[in-house]
C-alpha cells in the first residue's frame, strides 16, 4: 500500500501524486482481467466530492480533460454527510474495537473503502510505455449542492492509502500485456 502521508503534492492544492512501480517482467505478471486501485480509510463526513484518477500524468489537475490521452483512468464519488449534526462527540468514531457482545452496527462515519477499476488505462500504459506505471495522480473536486460552487478542494479528501490490485477472473477478457 502507498500511504497517503507519503504522497507528494501535485501542481495544484489538494492534488496528490503517488509514486508507484508496476512493470510486470513475466507473462504471468502481466496476465490480468481486471485491475483496481483500492483506496482505504476514505473520509465521507463532510461535503460530497469526487476524486479523479490519472496514471502517469503527474501534472494533472481539475482542468485536465478526463480523456485516455491524458492518462485518465476513472473516478470515485463520495456521498458526504455534510458535517456533524449531533451534540459534542456524536460524530467521533469509537477509539477501541467494540466488544463481541456489542451488536450495534458500525458507526455511520466509519471510513470507507473505494475502488476505481483501471483495467483499460493500465493495459494501455503497459502496452505503450516501457517503464510501466510510475505515478498515480489524484485530483479531488468538491460536489457542493450548488454547481457553481464546485471545484478543486484541498480539504475534503482524507484517506489512509491506496494499492493496485490485479485479478484473473472468468468474466472479463484476459489481458496479454506484459
Amino acid at each position: 500500500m502507498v500511504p497517503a502521508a507519503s504522497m507528494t503534492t501535485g501542481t495544484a492544492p489538494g492534488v496528490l501524486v503517488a509514486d508507484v512501480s508496476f512493470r510486470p517482467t513475466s507473462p504471468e505478471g502481466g496476465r490480468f482481467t481486471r485491475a483496481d486501485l483500492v483506496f482505504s480509510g476514505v473520509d465521507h463526513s463532510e461535503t460530497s466530492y469526487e476524486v479523479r484518477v490519472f496514471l502517469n500524468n503527474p501534472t494533472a489537475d481539475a482542468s485536465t480533460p478526463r480523456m485516455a490521452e491524458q492518462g485518465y483512468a476513472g473516478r470515485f464519488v463520495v456521498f458526504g454527510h455534510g458535517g456533524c449534526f449531533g451534540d459534542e462527540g456524536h460524530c467521533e468514531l469509537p477509539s477501541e474495537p467494540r466488544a463481541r457482545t456489542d451488536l450495534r452496527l458500525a458507526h455511520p462515519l466509519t471510513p470507507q473503502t473505494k475502488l476505481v477499476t483501471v483495467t483499460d488505462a493500465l493495459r494501455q500504459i503497459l502496452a505503450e510505455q516501457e517503464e510501466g506505471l510510475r505515478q498515480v495522480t489524484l485530483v479531488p473536486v468538491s460536489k457542493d449542492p450548488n454547481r457553481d460552487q464546485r471545484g478543486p478542494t484541498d480539504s475534503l479528501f482524507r484517506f489512509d492509502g491506496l494499492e493496485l490490485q490485479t485479478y484473473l477472473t472468468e468474466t472479463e477478457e484476459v489481458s496479454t500485456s506484459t
Partner: protein
Amino acid sequence: MGVRKSVYVLAAAEVEALREAFLAVMGLRDERGYQYHAGLHGLPLPIQCRHGDILFLPWHRAYLYFFELALQDRVPEVTIPWWDWTSATAHQDGLPPTHAAQAREDGRANPLFDSEVLLPQAELELVRERLPGALTDDDPPRTRRDPDLPDELPRDRTIRSILRAPTFSDFSSRLENVHNDVHVWVGGSMSAVPVAGFDPVFWSHHAMIDRLWYLWQLAHPGSLPPAQTLDLALAPFPMTVRQTLDISVLGYEYAVQTS
C-alpha cells in the same frame, strides 16, 4: 403483485396516480407521511441510511419497500417507477419529465418536482450553514436541484460491466459508486446525505439501483451477501438482510425494459 415500471413508459393515468399518491402522503404529518419516510434516510437525527458497507443495497430495498406501501395505502395501484439514467433519453434530457416539470399539464403543482423539508430549527440552521444550496430559502424550505449536463450521467457500458461482478460485495461496492455519482449529478438536496431523501426523484433513482441488484441476482443465482450479514436487522425497519433477498416475497417485480 406490484410491477415497477420505467418512468419513461408510464401512461398519463399512471403518472397522475403516482402524483396523487405522493401528494396524499405529503399531506400526512405522522409516521404515514412523507416527512417521516424522507427523514429516515438523513435528518432529523438519527441518520439511519447505510452507505459504504455491505448493508447499502438491503437497507435501501427495505426503505423503498416501506415507502411504497405508504404510497399504496393512499393509491393502491401505485408502484415506484425506476429512472434509467443510462438511457438515451436521460443522456439527452437529464431528469425525467415526470419529475422535472414544476407544474402539471393543468397548472397544478407537481409533487414529484420538490418537497417541503421540515426539520428542527437547529438542524435546519446547520444545513443552511454547511450545505448552502441544498434547500431553498423558503419558510419552510423546499428541496432544490442543480443538475449537471445530461451526458455526464452514468453510461450503459459501465452498468453492464458492474452486472458482471462475480460477488455481492464487489457488485455492491461498484454500484454504490455509480449511485453516488447520480446523487451529486442531480445536485441540490440530492447531493447531501442529510436531506437527499426528501427529493421525490430520490425514490426513482433508488428503484433503478434496486432493479440493478435484482438483475444481478437473476444473473448470479445463489450469490448472497456474506453469511454473517444475513440475519442483521435493517433498523429502523422490522426486516433482516435475508428478508430483502427475494422481491417476490415483498410483493413486487420489475417490468421488462421497453425503452
